[in-house]
């Protein structure tokens, strides 16, 4: 079975632009979470979606938004990019919403903001 896939793998944007990152979960998984991993740090939670509804949100500004589609894939949007948004963005899928569920991570999208 295919794992979690993310696209694109790399992305270069300039300050002020907008970006959309995409994630396809493992087949049968209904929960998708997004994390930001800045170089040298651990991942930080951004959002969790389950059955197309936002279930949790981390301490990120409103410039960050996401949505989940009927096929459980998800998009993360970031508006008005700042240099500090440069990071590896990780998507994780899980069969359920409970915190005991294992999360399966994709390889990430490396975003560079110039």
């Amino acid at each position, binding site marked *: 079975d295919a794992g979690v896939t993310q696209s694109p793998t790399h992305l270069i944007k300039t300050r002020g632009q907008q970006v959309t990152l995409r994630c396809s979960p493992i087949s049968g998984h209904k929960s998708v979470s997004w994390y930001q991993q800045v170089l040298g740090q651990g991942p930080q939670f951004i959002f969790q979606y389950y059955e197309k509804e936002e279930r949790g949100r981390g301490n990120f500004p409103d410039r960050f938004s996401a949505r989940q589609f009927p096929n459980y894939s998800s998009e993360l949007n970031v508006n008005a990019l700042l240099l500090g948004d440069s990071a590896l963005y990780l998507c994780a899928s899980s069969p359920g919403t409970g915190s005991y569920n294992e999360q399966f*991570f994709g*390889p990430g999208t490396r975003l560079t903001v110039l």
Partner: protein
Amino acid sequence: AQSVTQLDSQVPVFEEAPVELRCNYSSSVSVYLFWYVQYPNQGLQLLLKYLSGSTLVKGINGFEAEFNKSQTSFHLRKPSVHISDTAEYFCAVSDRRGYQKVTFGIGTKLQVIP
């Protein structure tokens, strides 16, 4: 809110020697505990998790961890490391009551020396 402290940013160890990676956490509520591994240019992979029951948890690739509630620790151990264990290791916690907001530590880079 939860927090995770990984006491060592880098741990060099010779091949076939034992290793311990230290993790302490802080939380006002009961938590689940996890260790993830991240190989270069890849996403995170779950090594092991503590949900309940026996405080000694065995994971993949010969790793194990022990949950110590009184010391709020969850140290990761392996009796004999291999070159292939060279990676970054993240300790993480999540609130038992809630959704999948996982709080990660800063990570420990394990460097196995031939």
